[in-house]
């Protein structure tokens, strides 16, 4: 997604990335990042917390206006309501990232990609 942001921006479309993986987005380098310190999957707010989602979206719009230079990161003030144990547990033995089916899907997609690449179709 960061790569798309960069391409749009290089061609005159202003962007804001809303993300939870601050390090990945900043390592790539984007014009504007609104970071919310939530588990991967909810960069725009907690599920069904509409008021919070509005505040976060409003901050994304503010950032579109206020950034004066690239690599502007703003962090939203929200704290995940169920504690921060998830930060330790993510990608741990106790909590594998993908379940069996998702791992299979991922490997199948990778294989498919390699095959198509060989055939010059991607």
């Amino acid at each position, binding site marked *: 997604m960061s790569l798309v942001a960069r*391409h749009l921006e290089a061609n005159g479309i202003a962007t804001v990335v809303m993300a939870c993986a601050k390090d990945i987005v900043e390592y790539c*380098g984007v014009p504007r990042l609104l970071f919310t310190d939530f588990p991967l*999957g909810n960069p725009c707010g*907690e599920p069904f917390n509409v008021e919070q989602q509005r505040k976060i979206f409003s901050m994304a719009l503010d950032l579109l206006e206020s950034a004066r230079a690239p690599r502007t990161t703003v962090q939203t003030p929200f704290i995940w309501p169920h504690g921060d144990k998830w*930060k330790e547990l993510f990608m741990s033995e106790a909590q594998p990232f993908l379940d069996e089916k998702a791992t299979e899907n991922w490997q199948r997609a990778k294989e498919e990609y390699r095959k198509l690449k060989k055939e010059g179709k991607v």
Partner: protein
Amino acid sequence: MSSYVRYIDKTREYYLAQGYETPYRWAHFDEVPFTPLKKPLSECCITIASTSDVALKSEQNKSDENGHKLIGNVYEIPSDVKATDLFSKQEHYDRHATNLDDVNAYFPVTRLHEFVVRGRLGSVAPYLYGVYTAYSQKRTLEIDAPEVLKRCRENNVDVAVLTPV
């Protein structure tokens, strides 16, 4: 408040422990482009682009038929869709800590319309975009990102909100 998760480090350690020896090379650039807003947001046309694999519930089965189309590729969703008619097939998120049951938590389509009604934004573009994971940064750079740009231009998009999952 504890510090944020270092996903690059976590991923490297996690896959190393699983026997994958070559760590993933995350995209990295020294230079970052920048486009200032050219007009007030209240006059801007906005869209969303996301890797959250959002799809119409009514096309739930259709999308699996052409597996290879899901590798890379840009697709569009009409912006007048109801959030409740959308769902996500994305599997790469923190499934232990949260869920993808509320599309607006990663694809803020309802928020877009609300902020147009409030006058904070000018308009919502007719289409919102999804980009499937490409397994290749080169492909994203050379094919998918230019495709998103082309479609944004066709629809006079001024600003884009990008949401990875």
